[in-house]
């Protein structure tokens, strides 16, 4: 709106209203500034500038400034006096010392009354005085009501409490007996009603749902009757009254104060502030110490909050990043050195992880600095424009409104950063090192060598990569597609309206999914072992002597079949859910048009099911791509074929189990990390494309 460094003629508030300046000195300067700006003649311009300098030099002699200083002096004296008289006033209130809340309210009212008379004289002099005056006037209107309410409520409460004492020894046997009788009576009624409703149901007059609802209804009635009756007991009624009163007192007091604060905030927004400053330099000067700027802006609670952040930055983040307080590492520097030349017990991997943690901490610290700077800067800039800085009440509201999503996401963010991101970053960085059996404790950066080895298919670990990738792709496509086909066809068959025993089939078909996969896989593995049940059956049937676990092709086929068995269950349930939701009239319409069963399946069922389950089917493929359990538990990735696969992998290993063997069993962590990154990148791209095409993303309603 206006250039920095120049004083504007008018002031603006939050809503954009315009106000006249009360500070005549600043107004004079502002008018001069305007003149200078509009003046074309250079000589005159120079003259005006000189005039401006003159005014600035003689600031203390300016008539407005003199009266302002006078006001400030008087205000100071007044405030001191107020402090003193406040203390006296509190002393005079000694009759209810324990009641802190009341004392607080009363003193506030006392102060406001004094302020009201003092500031009234200076309303025209400065906006600050006007604001104080308005605040005080609001206080004097609201506070008496609040105090009255509070006193009334407390007296009611205390009389109730006194009553409680009296009732303590009251014998309520009569009532108790009566209540028991009443309860028995009501119970009888309940039983009768229940019976009646059940009979209705038996006769088939009402549905099961209606029966349930009615039963609930009469139970509620019964409970209510008892609750009402209970209140006839004096003790109980007294107890309840005290409880309600306490709650009411607390809640209403809160609301009333909130209303007062909100009204004050309203004036805050409508009363501008006048300052001489034209450049928001606080924010730049205090950029490194969050909290200081807020303090200079007179937002003290905010200042405290940011000081806590400052403590985090300078006592945690910065020292950690520099290497102090590390377990072994050297902060961020450790990422470069990787413990090179360090002690024997120093491990490169620890240096790496601590370096990553240090980086994340630094990112958080920088984030806080930026937030603090932006906050101070905004408040300062607004103050120059004339907008009064918001008070704590408003800040609190803003935090609980706009800051809410950030605050509640914080735990998730922390867990994601330290449990998910740090390990992934570690793996990412590991893939550029030479961590292998010879370099376990100390390793160094080797750039893209690992990736080169994988892609070129070189080295001990790299040469089988493409072979394994090939089988991984075959496995993923075959096993998933088989499971989808089985599940889908079964769901279609069971869903046929002429088939009976749907519940039976659906329950049985659920089993492969419900039984934990590791159990079934291991049991399958036992069954196809030499001498196992399945092996014997196959041998008896074919007359051959097959050893599934020693034959790569048979192992692979068995794996695919097993995953078909395991995975079909999930697809079956999913498809059944979708099938049941397809409206029947679609099929009826098709029938009318003379469609055959096959047509109906092809034109109605398949497209609808596919459309709704497509994203989940995609996740099935990615799931099997990484299906470690099936491969590893079935045959440990075997059988081994050293000529073709070397010693590190077996012929049924997929990438994820290969990574496991590289990392866990053989300590080729770096190559394993590189392959992990390779997979992850592939999967990410895959998911990203799928997500980009999804309905939600396209419609922009994420």
């Amino acid at each position: 709106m206006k250039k920095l460094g120049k004083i504007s003629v008018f002031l603006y508030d939050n809503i954009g209203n315009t106000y006249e300046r009360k500070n005549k000195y600043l107004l004079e300067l502002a008018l001069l500034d305007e003149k200078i700006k509009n003046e074309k003649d250079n000589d005159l311009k120079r003259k005006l500038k000189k005039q401006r300098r003159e005014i600035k030099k003689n600031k203390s002699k300016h008539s407005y400034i003199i009266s302002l200083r006078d006001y400030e002096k008087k205000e100071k004296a007044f405030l001191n006096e107020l402090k003193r008289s406040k203390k006296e006033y509190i002393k005079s209130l000694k009759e209810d010392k324990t009641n802190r809340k009341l004392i607080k309210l009363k003193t506030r009212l006392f102060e406001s009354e004094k302020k009201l008379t003092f500031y009234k004289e200076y309303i025209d002099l400065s906006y600050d005085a006007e604001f104080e005056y308005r605040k005080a006037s609001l206080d004097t209107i609201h506070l008496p009501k609040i105090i009255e309410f509070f006193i009334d409520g407390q007296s009611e409460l205390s009389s109730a409490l006194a009553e409680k004492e009296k009732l303590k020894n009251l014998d309520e046997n009569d009532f108790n007996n009566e209540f028991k009788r009443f309860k028995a009576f009501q119970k009888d009624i309940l039983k009768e009603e229940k019976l009646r409703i059940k009979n209705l149901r038996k006769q088939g007059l009402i549905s099961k749902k209606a029966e349930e609802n009615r039963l609930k209804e009469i139970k509620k009635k019964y409970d209510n009757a008892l609750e009402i009756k209970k209140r006839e007991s004096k003790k109980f009624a007294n107890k309840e009254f005290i409880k309600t009163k306490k709650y009411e007192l607390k809640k209403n007091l809160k609301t009333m104060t909130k209303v007062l604060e909100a009204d004050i905030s309203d004036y805050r927004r409508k009363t501008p502030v006048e300052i001489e400053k034209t450049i928001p330099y606080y924010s730049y000067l205090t950029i490194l110490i969050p909290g200081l700027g807020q303090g200079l802006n007179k937002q003290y609670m905010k200042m405290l909050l940011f000081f806590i952040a400052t403590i985090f930055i300078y006592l945690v983040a910065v020292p950690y990043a520099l290497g102090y307080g590390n377990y072994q590492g050297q902060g961020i520097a450790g990422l470069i050195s990787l413990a090179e030349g360090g002690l024997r017990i120093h491990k490169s991997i620890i240096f790496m992880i601590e370096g990553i943690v240090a980086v994340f901490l630094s990112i958080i610290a920088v984030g806080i600095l930026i937030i603090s700077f932006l906050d101070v800067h905004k408040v300062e800039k607004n103050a120059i424009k004339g907008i009064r800085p918001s008070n704590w009440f408003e800040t609190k509201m803003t935090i609980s409104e706009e800051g809410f999503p950030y605050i509640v996401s914080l735990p998730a963010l922390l867990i994601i950063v330290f449990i998910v991101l740090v390990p992934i970053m570690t793996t990412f960085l590991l893939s550029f090192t030479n961590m292998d059996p010879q370099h376990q404790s100390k390793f160094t950066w080797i750039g893209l060598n690992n990736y080169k080895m994988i892609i070129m298919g070189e080295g001990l670990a790299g040469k089988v990569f493409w072979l394994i990738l090939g089988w991984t792709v075959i496995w993923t496509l075959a096993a998933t597609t088989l499971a989808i086909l089985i599940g889908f066809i079964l769901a279609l068959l069971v869903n046929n309206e002429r088939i009976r025993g749907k519940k039976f089939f659906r329950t049985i078909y659920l089993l492969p999914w419900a039984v934990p996969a590791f159990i079934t896989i291991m049991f399958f593995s036992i069954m196809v072992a030499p001498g196992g049940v399945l092996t014997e059956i196959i041998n008896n049937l074919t007359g051959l002597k097959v050893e599934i676990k020693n034959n790569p092709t048979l192992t692979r086929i068995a794996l695919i079949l097993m995953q078909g068995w395991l995975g079909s269950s999930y697809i079956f349930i999913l498809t059944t859910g979708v099938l049941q939701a397809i409206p029947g009239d679609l099929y009826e319409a098709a029938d009318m048009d003379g469609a055959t069963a096959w047509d109906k399946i092809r034109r109605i069922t398949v497209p609808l099911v596919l459309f709704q389950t497509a994203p989940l089917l995609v996740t099935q493929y990615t799931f099997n791509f990484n299906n470690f359990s099936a491969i590893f538990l079935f045959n440990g990735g075997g059988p081994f074929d050293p000529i073709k696969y070397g010693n590190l992998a077996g012929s049924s290993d997929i990438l994820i189990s290969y990574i496991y063997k590289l990392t866990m069993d053989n300590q080729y962590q770096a190559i394993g990390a590189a392959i992990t990154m390779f997979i992850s990148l592939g999967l990410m791209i895959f998911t990203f494309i799928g997500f980009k095409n999804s309905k939600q993303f396209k419609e922009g309603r994420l």
Partner: protein
Amino acid sequence: MKKRKENKEKLYLSDKPPLTLFGKIGIFLTYVVLFAWVYAIVWPLFQMFVSAFNGKQQQYIMANSNFEFSIRHFQYLFTETLYLTWVKNTLIIAGTTALLTLIVVSFTGYAYSRYRFKGRNASLMAIMLIQTIPTFAGITAYFTMHSIVSSIIPQFSRQMMLILIYTGGAIASNTFILKGYIDSVSTELDDAAKIDGCSNFNVYRLIIMPIARPMLTIIALWSFIGPFMDYLLAKVLLTSPQSYTLAAGLYTLVTDFRTMNQPAFAAGGLLTAVPIVILFIALQKQLVSGLTSGSVKG
């Protein structure tokens, strides 16, 4: 009732056209296929059941051995192995994971569904992509991270690390699921509550949470079942048999030569599977609805 049945036999009451011969053969074949698959599912499970109770089975489960009912494999499981400790471990880990996940996710799901804040879409996308990376990817780091933390806080056990990893892995996808669910709840309810003076937190606690309870149940259930199903992380991260979860513990009964006892594995597997199967059958509908809502995550 009887009358109706009689009528049914006499009259053709169905609104479907009567079956042709082809149709009848088709139905018959359908039944054949369905029962064949029932057999395919039940047979292996039945074998496991039989082996668990077969006293004639020795260390290895062999075919064609005679059957003799006995519960000695179960006795072995309870006396010779740490089965009960494993159950306890798994329950603790699963319970804590479910609780943590529920707390964290219920907030993020609500925030992402109801608020349009800076960085929302970017972080959603980031979550999306991160969750595609298998949890297994960070395995090397987990070890070291645990040793660093436990050197500072000795009480920090590997099981706690496991809980955190499970929770961290569950946040992303469950946030999506819950967000999708809350999206379907009309915002008019929130607005009404806010007009009546509810704070954001109370809107969630009093309005959204009760409505989203079915989905929250599913999320809790899934994250509870997760540790029962996961074998990989437990086996890698937990090192002593005392701290094993069920999956890792049972695995030692099939692979480790010192503790090898396949019928005991079958018995343990059975005991583990039965409660979960019952849970699945009882909550079939809810679990499935959770899955289809999960399609949001694409």
